[in-house]
């Protein structure tokens, strides 16, 4: 039974990270057009919305399995207060903060109509921080990311995300400068 719970904790943790990668990737591609060759924005939007919901049951299963597993020695307090675990407190604490940030992002999405556009965008951008923390949590605490093949896959994925992120930033800068030049051109 303990072994089963441990296996569930590991597999759901990795799958949740994959779902978050897809969510961040599709979200960045929406504005940058980096995946225009793959699909149109309507399709990417659908993937972004779906993966935003897909990671939640996986992350919950990951957390519940770790709570049930006596080997990992994680308690309910560790879900609320990071860095309390007697071993690997940084590695596990990063996961706690990441989970909390993503929950905030998800709640802000559900309550979008009650927020201003600027407020929602500010909260939504926390998902980048959450993703970096989740990635670091996976590398520092993940039993399977210590394997060379899986580690290589994770780093390749991170590199792809970094490239798309840079394209997203340059696209945003280009739009801003274009808007400024239009404003100047108006007499």
């Amino acid at each position: 039974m303990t072994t089963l719970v441990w296996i569930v904790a590991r597999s759901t943790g990795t799958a949740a990270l994959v779902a978050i990668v897809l969510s961040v990737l599709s979200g960045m591609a929406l504005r940058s057009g980096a995946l225009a060759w793959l699909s149109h924005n309507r399709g990417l939007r659908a993937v972004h919305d779906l993966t935003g919901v897909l990671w939640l049951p996986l992350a919950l299963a990951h957390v519940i399995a770790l709570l049930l597993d006596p080997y990992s020695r994680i308690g309910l307090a560790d879900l609320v207060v990071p860095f309390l675990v007697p071993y690997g407190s940084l590695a596990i604490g990063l996961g706690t903060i990441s989970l909390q940030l993503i929950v905030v992002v998800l709640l802000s999405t559900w309550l979008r109509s009650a927020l201003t556009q600027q407020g929602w965008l500010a909260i939504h951008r926390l998902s980048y921080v959450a993703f970096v923390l989740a990635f670091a949590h996976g590398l520092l605490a993940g039993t399977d990311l210590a394997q060379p093949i899986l580690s290589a896959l994770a780093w390749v994925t991170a590199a792809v995300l970094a490239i798309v992120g840079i394209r997203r930033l340059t696209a945003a800068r280009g739009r801003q400068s274009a808007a400024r030049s239009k404003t100047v051109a108006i007499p």
Partner: protein
Amino acid sequence: MARRKRVPLISSVQALRGIAVGITMLSLAGMTAYAGGHPYNTGAPLQPQQPVAAPAAAPATTTTTTGRLQLSRGITTTTTRPVTITRRS
């Protein structure tokens, strides 16, 4: 000359959703199978069951004796001044 509009590889929203779910579920199934075959990884960064680093104990030194009293011939002498003085009348 009219510019040709680029057609994306996948235009069906449902197909794209299916691919996203497929990638996630494939990773879940793959990791479950892998973790089932390798329940413990000695190279994992965290090993919860290991005790918290205890202070290293001093290495125990062992001496072998014969079990007999060892007597030495030498007489130890000190250079300190004697406390008592013998008076001469």
